[in-house]
């Protein structure tokens, strides 16, 4: 058996380099409390990136996840206002995400509206509803148990949301890499025609990935509401979507489907989270931060493309993937970095 270097190695090295640089630049950076702050700030990015990965793997995209954050958070807060118990409120928030995802999936599958447009539309809807309902005023949540979800610690040091993220990541990884559904997701993203003609129930796969993405965005919204102790109608309006998708892409999930892993997306989320955290510690002007992140995304993706096409470029040219305007050009298999 030939030993194989995992695909995620390259991106992990990038993370390590960033961490080392930041540790040199700021003595504050590599402290236990800051590491957990950093992880805590990566939770939302991570959850969105994991959900988004499922969608990206099928060759789709989900633009509604950022809006779902606010939608889910506000619905959770409204549930508390209606004196529901904390668990019902949480489920309400998560369900809001799940249903948005289901809606996306059904529209995309059965009306054949391109995912970009369909989720763009539901992004608009999902971001408007909380504003209409609340008139743009945050709804405070006062509940001790609920607070624990976003603000609590396990063993006094590990923030609860971090634990949730890790559990979700492990489950998602196992689902994608070990289950029939996971294989079908990769197959569907790799070649829709072949998958359908292999007898795979492709409708189910396509709808389910949006449900997963929506649900995780809903969960993320609940955690955010707990951290902020209120339902913010403008939560996630800024960079959440951008960061979630970039984390997945930086982590090696192809925008064209069929390629990518959860560990990759997870590391990608850490990179994005570390960068914004590091920049905050060093008091980088917030106007500059998206610019830096944008540059890093560009570099990371370029390196990855280079690495993956060293061998693949030949194939691309010769296995004749020239299909005119077809996007197949980008669909070459990711070559493994093998020793």
């Amino acid at each position, binding site marked *: 058996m030939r030993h194989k270097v995992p695909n995620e190695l390259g991106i992990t090295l990038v993370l390590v380099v960033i961490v080392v640089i930041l540790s040199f630049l700021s003595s504050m950076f590599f402290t236990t409390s800051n590491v957990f702050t950093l992880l805590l700030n990566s939770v939302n990015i991570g959850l969105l990136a994991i959900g988004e990965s499922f969608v990206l793997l099928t060759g789709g995209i989900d633009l509604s996840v950022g809006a779902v954050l606010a939608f889910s958070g506000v619905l959770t807060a409204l549930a508390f206002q209606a004196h529901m118990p904390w668990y019902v409120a949480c489920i309400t928030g998560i369900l809001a995400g799940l249903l948005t995802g289901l809606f996306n999936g059904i529209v995309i599958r059965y009306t054949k509206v391109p995912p970009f447009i369909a989720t763009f539309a539901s992004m608009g809807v999902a971001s408007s509803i909380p504003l209409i309902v609340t008139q743009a005023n945050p709804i405070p949540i006062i509940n001790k148990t609920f607070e624990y979800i976003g603000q609590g610690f396990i063993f006094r040091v590990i923030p609860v949301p971090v634990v949730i993220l890790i559990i979700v990541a492990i489950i998602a990884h196992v689902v994608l890499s*070990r*289950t*029939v*559904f996971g*294989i*079908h997701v*990769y*197959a569907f*993203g*790799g*070649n829709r*025609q*072949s*998958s*359908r*003609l*292999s*007898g*795979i*129930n492709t409708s189910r796969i396509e709808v389910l990935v949006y449900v997963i993405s929506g649900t995780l965005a809903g969960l993320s919204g609940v955690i955010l509401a707990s951290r902020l102790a209120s339902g913010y109608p403008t939560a996630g309006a800024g960079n959440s979507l951008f960061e979630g998708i970039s984390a997945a892409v930086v982590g090696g999930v192809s925008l064209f489907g*069929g*390629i990518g892993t959860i560990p990759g997306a997870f590391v990608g989320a850490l990179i994005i989270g570390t960068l914004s955290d590091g920049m905050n510690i060093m008091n980088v002007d917030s106007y500059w931060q998206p610019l830096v992140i944008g540059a890093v995304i560009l570099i990371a993706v370029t390196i990855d493309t280079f690495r993956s096409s060293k061998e693949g470029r*030949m*194939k691309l*040219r*010769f*296995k*004749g*993937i*020239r*299909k*005119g*305007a077809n996007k197949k050009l980008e*669909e*070459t*298999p*990711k*070559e*493994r970095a093998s020793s």
Partner: protein
Amino acid sequence: MDSGPVKDNFIRVENLSKSYSGVTVLHDFSLVIRPGEVHALIGHNGAGKSTVIRMLSGSEAPTAGEIILDGQPVNLTSPRIARHLGIYTVFQELRLIDELTVSQNIFLGKELSSKGFSNKKKMNDLALTLLKGHNLSHIDVTAKLKSLSHAERQLIEIMSCITNDARLILLDEPTTALQSKEVQDLMNTIRELSQKNISFLFITHKIEEAFSVCTHVTVLRNGQMISSKSIAETNQNEVFEYVAGHKIVEVNSWKRNSGNALEVVLEVKNLKSDVLEIDSLRVKRGEVIGLYGLVGSGRTELLETLYGARPHTSGNMSLVGKPYHPKSPSVAVRSGVFLLTEERKINGIIPQLNSKMNMIIASVDKFQKFNFLRNHEVDQQTMKFVERLSIKGDMREPIVRMSGGNQQKVMLARWLIPNGQVLMLDEPTKGVDIGVKAEIHAIIRDLAKQNYAILVVSSEVEEIVAVSDIVAVMQGGRIKTMLEDNDITENRLLAESMEGTQK
């Protein structure tokens, strides 16, 4: 002047070798191509033909050896440079753009312009003159490329090379997707252009074709040049033996089944769809029905309809006595009706997945427990088929790394792992080499013995004759006639499929 004889030689390839990470795939390949010569390069998949093409087209640098043009060693470091020097390549998948017009495609990348605006009229006129000069005046230069047939597009691509002053055109298996009439047209064009001193290097599996147009034949096997002779010095049998390395005798030891005692597995009555009108078709257990007909006769459409991949308007189908309604491929697969698709790259393989997963993708349910994949069983089962079909290549690598023949075997195995009743094979040997072809034929016969009911579609008449118990000749979406036993001959099939088409 000692450059005299050298100058006469249009392109000399000297001792070209190529190795990838230590593995040599081409040894000492030498060839001299003079103006107007048509060379055939014949060999199995993996013999090194594509490597030669890659190096001549400038896509890959040789590990050793030289390419000498007009006595000058040249460094073909990119396809652009190769083209600049007059070496053009026409790949199986064409380089043209569907949404542009014929003339725009011909002038792609070197559009004529005046004052910065593209001069449509001039391009159209020139394109028209060009096409007229090559007996292609029936093609409308202002039509969009997508309205043309594959064969016409290929000719357009060749025309586009000529406008660039091509001196050598490399053709990578140009006839795979063509009908026999179209092949003739292509051959005529090649002959005619070769008289204008344009040379060709024609990569093919098909020995007969090579002999019909080429002046020289070069045979590669396992990266070694086995022979390089002019047509006058050799013959088809000799070349065949060179290619195979030994004599391949099609085992025709089996006797065609024409028994009526067999159980009917799939019965089709009055099946109608937009392109089909099938009165009756019965596929029996242990029997291979060959479907033969010209492209457009509805062969593939019939398979796809039976598989539920294409809707039908009316019809009665039954599977082992029970009604069968294939609404979708997943219904068909659950009922045990399987289809090996024709376009392996487009709707067969899942390129990013490894070969193992590609093999089990249609039967993952067999390998799961509580939805989890049991890797151990997957390994066992796939290894079994790797041995049975002698699949070569790393099963853990993405399937695109395998050669076409091995990919095809993986596709075949995909449908042998689940328990099926009806196996439908659409062009089962498309793009595989001669040796694998014979193997696949043997496998098909073997599967019939194992009681599969089999439908085979093929454009190659020899293949239909080699594997079928019964042949259904299709024309215009109907089954024109059924042939059995001694009626199954190449001539009869060709005659039946052509007859009555010219109206």
